[in-house]
C-alpha cells in the first residue's frame, strides 16, 4: 500500500507527464497573469501609499455621482455599479464559452464569445463616458483666493475640502467675469453666456446665491494621475481582451479549432478575460468603494 501511495505522490514528476497537468500555452498564460498581477499590484499599492500619506482624500461618492441622461441628479456610485455588473456578466458569458469549448460545441462557443465581446465593448463605452464626464465637467474651485472652473484632469483635481460660504463670498470679489458668468449660467438660463459676460462685475457677483454654491479647494494632485493611469491601464486590458476575443471568434467561425480537435485556445483567452474582471474587482474597491 505504501508503495502505491508513493507512486501516486510522485508520478507528476517522474517523466512522461506534464507536472502541472496543463498544456504549455495555458501554463504560460498563468505565468503572464502572475506578472500582470504584480504590475497592477504595484500601481494600486503606490496609489494606496500616496493616499495614506495625505491628510485629506476626496470621498468617491462625491466624485462618481453622475449617470448618463440624468443631468445633475446625485446618484453616487450608480454608474460604476452598472459597469461592474457588465463586466461580471461578460465573465459569465466567457466561462460559458469555455464550457461549450470543452463539449466541442462550435455554435455554443461562437454565441457566448459574441456576448462576451459585446459586454467588453459596453464596458469600454461606459468608461469612455465616465472619462469624458470627468475631463470636461467643470466645478467651482477656490484657487489663490479666487474661484476658477476646474475639471478633473491628470494635473488638477477640483475635489478638495468644501469651502465655507463666508470664504466663497470673499473669493467672488476676486473672481474673473468669465467664471462669474459661468456660475450664474448654471442656475439661470434666461441669458446667454456671452450676454452675462458683458454685465458689470458687481451685478454678476450679486446674481450668485453664495449659500447655494458648492465650492471646494483644489484636491490632491495625485488623484487624477492614479485614477486615469490605473483605470486607463485596466481599460487597455479590456480593449486588448476584446481584440483577442474577436480574433478567437473569427478562428472559431473558420473552423480552426474544429480541425485542431480541441478548443483549448478559448480557455487561454478566457483566463485573460477573467483576469481583467479580477483586476476590476480591486480597481472598483480602491477607487470607488473605500
Amino acid at each position, binding site marked *: 500500500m505504501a508503495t502505491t501511495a508513493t507512486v501516486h505522490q510522485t508520478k507528476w514528476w517522474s517523466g512522461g507527464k506534464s507536472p502541472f497537468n496543463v498544456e504549455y500555452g495555458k501554463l504560460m498564460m498563468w505565468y503572464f497573469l502572475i506578472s500582470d498581477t504584480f504590475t497592477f499590484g504595484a500601481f494600486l499599492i503606490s496609489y494606496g501609499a500616496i493616499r495614506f500619506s495625505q491628510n485629506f482624500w476626496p470621498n468617491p461618492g462625491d466624485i462618481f455621482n453622475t449617470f448618463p441622461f440624468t443631468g445633475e441628479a446625485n446618484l453616487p456610485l450608480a454608474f460604476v455599479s452598472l459597469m461592474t455588473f457588465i463586466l*461580471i456578466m461578460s465573465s459569465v458569458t466567457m*466561462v460559458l464559452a469555455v*464550457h461549450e469549448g470543452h463539449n466541442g460545441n462550435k455554435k455554443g462557443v461562437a454565441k457566448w464569445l459574441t456576448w462576451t465581446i459585446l459586454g467588453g465593448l459596453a464596458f469600454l463605452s461606459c468608461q469612455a463616458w465616465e472619462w469624458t464626464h470627468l475631463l470636461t465637467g467643470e466645478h467651482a474651485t477656490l484657487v489663490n483666493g479666487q474661484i476658477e472652473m476646474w475639471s478633473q484632469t491628470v494635473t488638477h483635481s477640483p475635489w478638495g475640502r468644501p469651502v465655507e460660504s463666508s470664504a466663497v463670498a470673499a473669493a467672488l470679489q476676486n473672481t474673473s467675469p468669465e467664471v462669474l458668468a459661468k456660475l450664474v449660467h448654471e442656475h439661470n438660463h434666461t441669458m446667454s453666456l456671452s450676454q452675462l459676460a458683458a454685465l458689470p462685475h458687481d451685478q454678476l457677483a450679486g446674481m450668485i446665491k453664495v449659500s447655494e454654491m458648492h465650492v471646494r479647494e483644489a484636491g490632491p494632485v495625485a488623484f487624477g494621475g492614479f485614477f486615469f493611469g490605473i483605470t486607463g491601464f485596466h481599460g487597455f486590458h479590456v480593449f486588448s481582451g476584446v481584440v483577442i476575443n474577436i480574433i478567437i471568434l473569427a478562428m472559431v467561425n473558420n473552423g480552426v479549432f474544429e480541425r485542431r480537435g480541441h478548443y483549448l485556445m478559448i480557455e487561454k483567452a478566457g483566463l485573460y478575460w477573467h483576469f481583467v474582471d479580477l483586476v476590476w474587482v480591486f480597481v472598483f474597491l480602491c477607487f470607488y468603494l473605500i
Partner: protein
Amino acid sequence: MSAAHQNVSSEISLPQKHSGDFVKRIWKTFWILLIITIIELGLGLLLHALDLPDNTKRLLLKGIIIILSLAKAYFIVSVFMHLGDEIHNLILTIVIPLMLIIWAIVSFMIDGDSYKHMRNKYDKHFLERTMEVPPKTTKPAQ
C-alpha cells in the same frame, strides 16, 4: 461524446467532469458575485452617507468591504478561471509568488502613513493646508 476528441497530448489528462452541473455552478457563482457586489455597494454608500468622524468605525467598514472583495476574487479565480479544479502543483506555483503582494501592501501602507506623520510634525504649512477641518477664513482679499 466529448471525451474522445479532447485528446491534446499524452502528457496531459484532462478532467472529464464538465457537464450540466458545471453550468449550474457557473450561475451559482454569478449570483454569489452579484450579491457580494450589492452588499459591497450598500456598505460603500453607507460609508459615504454616514461620513463617520470615528476613524475606527470607518476602518471597520472598509475592512469588511476589503474582505468581501477578496471573497469575490477567490470565486473568480477558483471557479471562472478553473484554478480550483487544477492539480495542487499548479495552484501552489501560482499562489505562493502572490504572497509577496501581502508584504508589499503592508510595508508601503506603513511607509505612506509614516510619511504623513512626519510631514504633519515637521511641516506645519502642510498640516494647515490639508487638515480635515475646513478653513475658517481664507487669505485676506485685496
